[in-house]
């Protein structure tokens, strides 16, 4: 048993999640309810990395459907970030790896929904740079995910299998006629395309299907001169194989055709579940997933239509789901700075990378071929531990105090942008709404206001704000520190 196999399911025992999907009545029909700040904020928080005032205002100017279309259209149109200087050079230089990880953090901030989808595919089509080593392979891999982030799932599935990162990570390059390695074939079926069990509860494939598919996939190797995956006919098993009951001298392309011919429904369901749990709630709702699967099939596995449909649906805006997702580390870190209006200098991107690692998310290096446990329906609480909570809280405080690589932070522009800076009550209410996923009750808001006032009567705030900005700044910073340290701030 190799390391990756045993790591696959290994993630300790998270506490039992709710045993079944939350009971909600609505489905994929378009959302027609109110379109105010709470709803628009929910959309932005789930579709991007954290909320900014500008994104919120933009969404409110549109209809719910118009806001979703704008997010998706913007993501589809966004060009790829600049390639690093070493993108076509062999080398396992750690500095290049770090550069590429940090560039991703920067792109998450700017690239919105496109990067959220790219991260989804990274967690789905897992490869780990610890295994494949070369930064150039990480560049190719991430660029491929990005290119097809809202493109066609079939195309992406077909493309990732011949990337050097994948050929090395799942041993495809070691599999040849007479010397079959099943690793990639197994994950192709079990994790990347259809899952072990279909929506009908039946096994989707047999061990024999894996062996035969592995034979058909042979021949792909990594050419270290070109740094590309290439087909070497001499390593290919040209004999007849039987996959899902169909017999022929199948090759790489044939395997993919057969998958979609014979298991289209199962694949659509599996992909729909992934997208559902990415945006709505970790535990998928079977009826909604079935509807999404249908949409995928009707659109020949184009991803954008089903993402539009889900984000526009009444189901997505169900109040039960608002604030029900635990922020993953990169979402937490990028969101924190976006929400506070902090523009990360390069050194802070390096800090993100390190803090992300400490919080359990080393980008480009998921712990197992099944991705990060925190994204899995049955282990999604894994991000939050007694080790990670103090570190998350400390990092939020560091951001406010300008510690470490954080630039010095002035909270007044934030307050002025999203509230009436002359009113302590308004500031408390609006900062809470900006940072927390669900509304606080009146007692909580009074407590927040008291932090700002520090014992002074409410009418003195305006004087303090106008005559002593440094003191006002300090009071607001304390209020923000209280807010980002609340348990609610871990949720989105």
């Amino acid at each position, binding site marked *: *048993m190799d390391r990756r*196999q*045993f*790591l*696959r*399911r*290994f*993630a*300790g*025992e*998270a*506490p039992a999640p*709710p045993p079944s999907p*939350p009971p909600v009545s609505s489905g994929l029909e378009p959302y027609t309810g109110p379109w105010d700040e709470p709803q628009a904020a929910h959309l932005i928080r789930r579709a991007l990395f954290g909320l900014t005032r500008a994104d919120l205002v933009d969404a409110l100017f549109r209809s719910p459907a118009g806001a979703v279309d704008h997010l998706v259209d913007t993501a589809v149109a966004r060009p790829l970030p600049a390639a690093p200087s070493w993108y076509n050079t062999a080398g396992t230089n*750690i500095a290049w790896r*770090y550069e590429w990880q940090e560039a991703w953090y920067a792109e998450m901030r700017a690239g919105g929904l496109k990067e959220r989808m790219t991260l989804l595919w990274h967690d789905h089509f897992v490869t780990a740079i*610890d295994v494949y080593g070369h930064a150039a392979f990480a560049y190719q891999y991430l660029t491929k995910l990005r290119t097809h982030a809202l493109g066609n799932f079939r195309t992406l599935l077909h493309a990732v299998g011949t990337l050097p990162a994948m050929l090395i990570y799942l041993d495809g390059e070691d599999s040849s006629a007479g010397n079959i390695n099943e690793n990639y074939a197994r994950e192709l079926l079990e994790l990347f395309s259809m899952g072990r069990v279909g929506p009908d509860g039946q096994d989707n494939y047999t061990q024999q299907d894996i062996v035969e598919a592995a034979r058909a996939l042979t021949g792909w190797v990594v050419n270290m001169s070109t740094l590309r995956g290439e087909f070497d006919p001499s390593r290919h098993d040209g004999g007849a194989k039987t996959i899902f009951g169909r017999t022929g001298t199948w090759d790489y392309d044939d395997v993919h055709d057969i998958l979609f011919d014979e298991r289209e429904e199962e694949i659509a369901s599996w992909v729909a579940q992934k997208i559902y749990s990415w945006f709505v*709630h970790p535990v998928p709702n079977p009826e909604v997933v079935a509807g999404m699967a249908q949409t995928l099939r009707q659109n020949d596995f184009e991803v954008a239509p089903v993402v539009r449909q889900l984000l526009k649906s009444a189901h997505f805006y169900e*109040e*039960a*789901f*608002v*604030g*029900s*997702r*635990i922020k993953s580390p990169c979402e937490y870190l990028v969101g924190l700075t976006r929400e506070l209006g902090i523009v990360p200098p390069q050194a802070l991107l390096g800090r993100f990378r390190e803090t992300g*690692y*400490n919080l*359990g*998310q*080393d980008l480009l*290096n998921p*712990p*197992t071929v099944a991705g*990060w*446990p925190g994204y899995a329906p049955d*282990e999604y*609480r*894994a*991000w*939050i*531990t*007694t*080790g*990670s*909570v*103090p*570190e998350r809280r*400390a*990092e939020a*405080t*560091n951001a406010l105090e300008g*510690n*470490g690589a954080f630039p010095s932070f002035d909270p007044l522009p934030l307050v002025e942008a999203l509230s009436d800076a002359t009113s302590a009550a308004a500031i408390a209410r609006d900062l809470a709404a900006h940072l927390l*996923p*669900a509304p606080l009750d009146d007692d909580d808001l009074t407590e927040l206001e008291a932090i700002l006032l520090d014992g002074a009567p409410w009418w003195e705030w305006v004087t303090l704000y106008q005559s002593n900005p440094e003191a006002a700044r300090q009071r607001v910073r304390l209020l923000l520190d209280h807010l980002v340290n609340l*348990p*609610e701030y*871990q*949720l989105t």
Partner: protein
Amino acid sequence: MCQHPHPPRSDRAISLAHGADHDRDHAAWSRRTFLSRSALAAGGTAFLLNGVPVHASSGSSLLHLLSRFGADRVLVLIQMAGGNDGLNMVVPVTNDLYYQRRPTIAVPQSNTFRLDDDYGLHGAMGAAEPMWGDGHLAVVQTVGYPDHNLSHFRSTDIWASASDADETLSSGWTGRYLDHAYPDYVTSPPEYPVAVRIGGASALLVRGGATSMGMSFSNADQLLQLATTGQFYDEDDVPPGVYGEELSFIRSIYNASLRYRDVVVEAANAATNAAEYPTDGLGSSLALIARLIKGGLPSRLYVVEHGGFDTHSNQTDRQPDLLQRLAESLAAFDVDLADGGRSDTVMSMTFSEFGRRVEENGSGGTDHGTAAPLVLAGGGVNGGLYGDGPDLADLDGSGNLHHSVDFRQIYATLLRQWFGVPQAETDALLGGAFDPLGFIGNPVAAEPGAAPHAAVLEAPYPNPFRGRTTVAFALDRPGRVALTVSDARGRLVARLASGPHTAGRHAVPFHADGLPSGVYHLRLETDKGVQSRPVTVVR
């Protein structure tokens, strides 16, 4: 120095660590146990530790620990983050090459205090001169490792994990020591943090094989703020529905993360500082640590950061100030601990991910280098200079120094002579045998029962496993054993061997059929004590 091949070790375990964290959180801190522990705490178990009253919510683990040999020994690691320029800290004052290669930034002989004929400590560290005179300061020169890595992060990981340059480990050397010192940590964690990390020092240092140990704070103030602002949250008063369920869960972990609050705050309040520290990060961290130690907190390891050493430019404006604060902080710490009678049982050690290039660069600074000196401080130190001085005539291809002392020799010295870890265990913790140095003036004997081979629980093979694995143990004389398996929550799931066994090696199968995948703990109990090892079941 001899080096045996490293035993295979898991090279990647972020998720494992977090998964195990989770197990522990929930094993040790369900809401019910939290309430019952709070009730205990309210009852007020107090006792004297080193003459200081200590309040802890349950004394059993403390008393257990105190019965262990050498258990009052504390190690304080000071990470000089950024890469400290060793040549300008321990200055080769008689070396012409040094002055030739550093025409603008070399430290003149007159600005040093002499350690011996050839070396002087930077004058900015004058506050440490009394410690040197008292024999409370050891300086180890040209510490490094083969194929030195020049990346800050990678080299920090290497120092923290004690790995080879081309090896990636997911636990820290001190974390593994804590695993060794607290074999039941996962199933029954002590009521106090076994390690305290303040600031941005490497988190890897406190990461053991299964989980992160102890508690972390971004600064000393934050720790003290716990007393007033670290609040507990109501896990039941949440809105109905999924959001409320998740909020309740998060609150339970927030509460669990504060579980050490009472013992830590009480220790801090039980003592006062008897010396004046610099008011910067390092000074305030060490001041707080002195109070915790004097106040009776039994933590074994403290990790603090002293950053800013990445002096690529204008080095002479920056490094002396950092060195001065280091020396002043160490000197105050030394006085303070002596006041509390803990001078001989607390050892401080600096380290930095690398030294800097011999030749100065064009910006009045130095680029990343390799070997560098480090400092050990405390009443238990056998003061003096160790290791070979830097040979400036024999540099590597990048113009960097060769090392004379492998950093793991320092670790081996501390593990064996400071903490009393037997040699075989030390070798296992460091992944090889490294010769100790002589910088410890009051070494402890190896742990009692040191007949370390009297009973050995071997690593199960295969591990992780599916279905069946083999667990072997060896006895050097006949005796009774109990070999059991418990799950992450401490529940007994299998009894593999019990009763009298003959001397020699015994191998027994462990069938995991029907057990959920996850980490389990093998536990071998003999009249020599208890050993445990994790084993992973996959399905």
